[in-house]
């Protein structure tokens, strides 16, 4: 995938306490023409970096010093409370649907939550960074799978066909109709039909915009879960 010409000169903050990964992330972002204006390794410096007005997107590790628990996530949530819509892509070695809920709570979009493994697929990762920077929502397939298949409490989900559930998962990952069609090797029209069915079965209003659609689905999952 070529670099997106619509979003030139993105400025990113990288927060990662492991030097090896911080360097790797920085190199990958720079290779994708994203300027890393600050690379920090603990929560206090992340808080300071996120307060900068020139940050276009932050790539944040969940677990960082001093307590090595979820200070990255907390800093991100706090920064988004101070500046709603601040694009934050959270990376972690484990995905935890609960944390996804914390991130999505504001409902303003421009969030991502990916396993660190996904960074290795450089182009997809860079696309995800740009998507988040542009206000989109990107969730790791594992998070989505966890949310969608999570529990029997999501009664209406049981009414979805396996194919509809696949489409729902891909929607939640922030993919467009065209991308979903390509992935499932079906026509875009068929995808549109599936989405219509899903929204009907979940009693959600029809929505055209990808992001609003994802948010609607996630908000619904969140409310149920």
């Amino acid at each position, binding site marked *: 995938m070529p670099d997106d010409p619509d979003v030139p000169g993105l400025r990113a903050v990288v927060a990662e306490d*492991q030097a*090896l*990964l911080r360097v*790797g*992330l920085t*190199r*990958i972002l720079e*290779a994708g023409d994203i300027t890393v204006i600050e690379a920090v390794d603990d929560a206090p410096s992340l808080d300071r970096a996120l307060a900068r007005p020139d940050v276009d997107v932050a790539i944040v590790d969940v*677990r960082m010093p001093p307590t*090595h628990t979820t200070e990255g996530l907390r800093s991100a949530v706090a920064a988004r409370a101070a500046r709603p819509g601040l694009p934050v892509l959270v990376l972690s*070695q484990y995905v935890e649907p609960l944390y996804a809920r914390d991130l999505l709570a504001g409902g303003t979009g421009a969030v991502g939550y990916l396993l*660190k*493994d996904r*960074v*290795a*697929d*450089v*182009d997809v*990762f860079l696309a995800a960074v740009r998507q988040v920077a542009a206000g989109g929502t990107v969730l790791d397939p594992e998070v989505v799978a966890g949310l969608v298949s999570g529990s029997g409490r999501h009664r209406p989900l049981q009414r979805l066909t396996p194919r509809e559930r696949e489409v729902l998962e891909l929607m939640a990952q922030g993919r467009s109709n065209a991308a979903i069609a390509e992935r499932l090797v079906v026509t875009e029209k068929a995808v549109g039909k599936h989405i219509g069915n899903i929204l009907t079965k979940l009693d959600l209003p029809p929505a055209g915009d990808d992001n609003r659609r994802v948010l609607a689905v996630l908000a619904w999952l969140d409310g149920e879960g």
Partner: protein
Amino acid sequence: MTDWAPMPSLLAPITTVHPAPVDQVALVERLRLTLVSAGQFLLFVPALVLFVLTVVAVPTGPAGVGFVLAAGVVPATALLASWHRRLAGGLLGEPVPAGYADTAGRGLLGRPLVWLRDGNRWRDVGFLAYSTTGGAILSALPPLLLLTPVVHLAGLLIDPGRVWALTFGLSLVCPLVWWLVTPPLVRARTLADRAILGHSLVAQLERRVAQVAATRTEALDANAAEVRRIERDLHDGAQARIAAVGMNVGLAEKLIASDPAAAAELLREARETTVSALEDLRSVVRGIHPPVLADRGLPGAVEALALSIPLPVTLALDVPESLPAPVESAAYFAVAECLANTVKHAAASRAWVSGAHQDERLRLVVGDDGVGGADPAGSGLAGVARRLAAFDGSMTVSSPAGGPTVVTLEVPCPTTPTSPGSAPS
């Protein structure tokens, strides 16, 4: 104290307290009881000394003097009490159980604190008081009654006269009284001794249960901390490195056409990172269960430890290769921690590890010729103590400033091994 009684028959149970029959057997029995009674009486001398010292030690404890006194007085009191227990047990025909609070693993300063809280030690003190007063009188009567006519007869022979003749005549009633009261008096004394010195089995069990509950909690805490440590090690080590390898390879993939040299460099870095990721994994595995422990048992694993540290380590291990796996593992990590401390803090030129398995106990001693000053309450050694306590084991640290440091580890360890560790792959 098993070899204390010079004549085992002296300590046979009291046969009867009835005055009849009057025969030789009954006479010998009464003479025996009188002798034992005399012994019980004479022990009032050390009891009095110990009682006075105890009375001095308790108020001066905080000033330090009492601490020093207690270190001698309390064990001496326990020894005296054990003699009385043996006497009472022999005369009653059933052992009088002792059960003091456990001080294993406590230092010289820790032991008095345990003693102070131990009700049975205070009963010993009470016994000292009783043994110099009422107890002494009870025990003095039989020999006195028997000796009275002898003394008066001696007086009459040395200084013949009416007074001595009269008192001798009157004292002739004493042997009769002696015959009647000796068995009940001796019995009363031993029953009183048992009441004071016999420690209740229920109380012992209660104490044991409390101890087991405490060590179990500690063991579970230690276990949880261990699991957290392993999670952290994996997260910060192998997992992070493998993720980094992924990033490098991914970026190399992107650059391979446009900048092959940079791609090659990234791949080289990635290869090196896989090596360190494997090293991390190996060290985590070693931290869980060292392969050499599974292969060679404790002696081999300690030998491997000795080779891995940058100090000459003398080994004298007489330990079976197959011990119960949990004990073996706890002992291994205990030795590893001690040697790690030696390397880190002791500035030692040499270290040594000796070990033996005797009487169902595994005893390991780790020492070095370093600067000493090791703190048993430090997190490393405290962790070792907690881990051993889970097996009713103990750790004693002797590490005066200036050295040397000697850590003694002891764990009860049955000879029949439980399941052997699974074979390594």
